[in-house]
């Protein structure tokens, strides 16, 4: 479904992604792991068109998207939920969700998609008229996920969905992501904690200094000695 080959990204003179290749297949949940500054967010940003790549190919559903602007990529049903939720703080919950269905591909299906989101997150319906910034972190994460789902994505990319959440809320979020996946949405997500990530993902890629250093299924990664070196050093 998503295929990245030899991706290279630089910020000015500094190369942050040095030839990354990865695959995400239909129906999977794939984790992108690695220490801070490894380039995880940069990869997601390059896929969704927020960051332009210097070299490499990104193919989604058979379409080359490496030089497409972000407002066109979302039309292909690829949604990206940014780190720290990034809901529109001074718009209401309803307005946030409605904008999630702004792109022309899903514009006509907004009402149906909104009902689906409300089924998944009943709390958002209760909070419809509340301004997004006045909600708790967990609620904002629900809103960010709901807003992403309004684009009726085939692939949902989530950057650190559990960041800053209380343990119980984080567990709930993991369950919600599993539910979303069971409904047929492929998921690619970023997470710092290997144990947590592997409880959700089928497969994972471990990134270090802009390169993929380990890849494998969840159990392979959990038993890998290499992963300790990446995260703990030495």
């Amino acid at each position, binding site marked *: 479904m998503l295929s990245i080959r030899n991706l290279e990204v630089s910020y000015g003179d500094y190369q942050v992604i040095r030839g990354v290749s990865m695959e995400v297949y239909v129906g999977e949940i794939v984790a992108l792991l690695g220490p801070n500054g490894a380039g995880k967010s940069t990869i997601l940003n390059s896929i969704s068109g*927020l960051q332009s790549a210097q070299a490499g190919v990104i193919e989604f559903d058979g379409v080359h998207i490496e030089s497409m602007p972000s407002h066109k990529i979302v039309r292909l049903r690829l949604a990206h939920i940014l780190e720290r939720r990034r809901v*529109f*703080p001074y718009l209401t919950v309803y307005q946030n969700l*409605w904008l999630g269905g*702004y792109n022309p591909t899903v514009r006509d299906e907004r009402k149906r998609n909104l009902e689906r989101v409300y089924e998944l997150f009943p709390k958002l319906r209760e909070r419809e008229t509340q301004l997004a910034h006045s909600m708790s972190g967990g609620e904002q994460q629900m809103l960010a996920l709901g807003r992403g789902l309004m684009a009726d994505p085939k692939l949902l990319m989530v950057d650190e969905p559990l960041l800053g959440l209380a343990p119980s809320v984080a567990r709930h979020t993991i369950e919600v992501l599993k539910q979303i996946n069971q409904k047929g949405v492929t998921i690619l997500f970023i997470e710092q904690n290997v144990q947590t990530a592997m409880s959700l993902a089928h497969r994972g890629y471990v990134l270090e200094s802009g390169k993929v250093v380990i890849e494998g299924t969840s159990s392979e990664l959990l038993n890998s000695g290499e992963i300790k070196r990446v995260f703990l050093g030495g």
Partner: protein
Amino acid sequence: MTREIIIQALISGLLMGFIYALVAAGLSLIFGLMEIVNFAHGEFMMLSMYTTFWLYTLFGLDPLLSIPICIVLLFVIGVVTHYGIIRHILDAPMLVQITATFGLAIFLRSLAQFLWSADYQVIDDPIVSGRIEIWGIYLGLPQVVASAGCLLAFGFLYYFVNRTETGIALQATAQDREAAGLMGIQTNRMFALGWGIGASCVGVAGALISSYYMVFPDVGIIFALLAYVTVAMGGFGSLIGALIAGIAIGLIEAAGAILVSPAFKYGIIFLCYLAVVLLRPKGLFGRF
């Protein structure tokens, strides 16, 4: 000093406040959207006033009728400014952004002086003229019409920004450019739209006040200066803040002129402005 004079002055101030509010709303919209101050805002207003003046002088078109023309023309000027200049300096250092719009202001002012001379021009016989009397208070009809028109335009702007889908998308772009792009919003188009609408605000205000205000190349300076104060006082990016602060400034100006001295009216405005920014730096309704 009689009560009538004070009431009359305050009502005139209130009327002036609606005009300041619309001019400031245009400036605030652009700033809220992309954090760029349009230093050519007053010059845009000057262009609208000259357009009105020439349509009247050459074709006998009344200032009221040139409002729609000025809205469209200024919208186009705003959009062209975005695509021609602003788009290229979006991520440039602040000094570059300031110099760019400030340079545009000087260019437009000089151009006006070159083309139409520095002389003061007046529209001598507009349809709306004379004065009206309400409960013993006399008001110039052009002033009343201009203020009502500006308030109406402000109402339209407020409705557009808060109740239409494009308006909501505009707000989303202002609040988070990247997230808006991920929703499928073409943020560059939103910026152009913001410039178009922001310039149209002074298009309306300029056309309306032309029927009683003199037209000359530097006419925009004081309006823009007051608009910066209004926006800073009301809070950057807030339309309601622009309305409240615009009215406040109109009232302070009028009160200062009769209670202290007309020569000090702007000084008093700037004193009040200093007080607001010292006590509440983000302005009355600001988020930044």
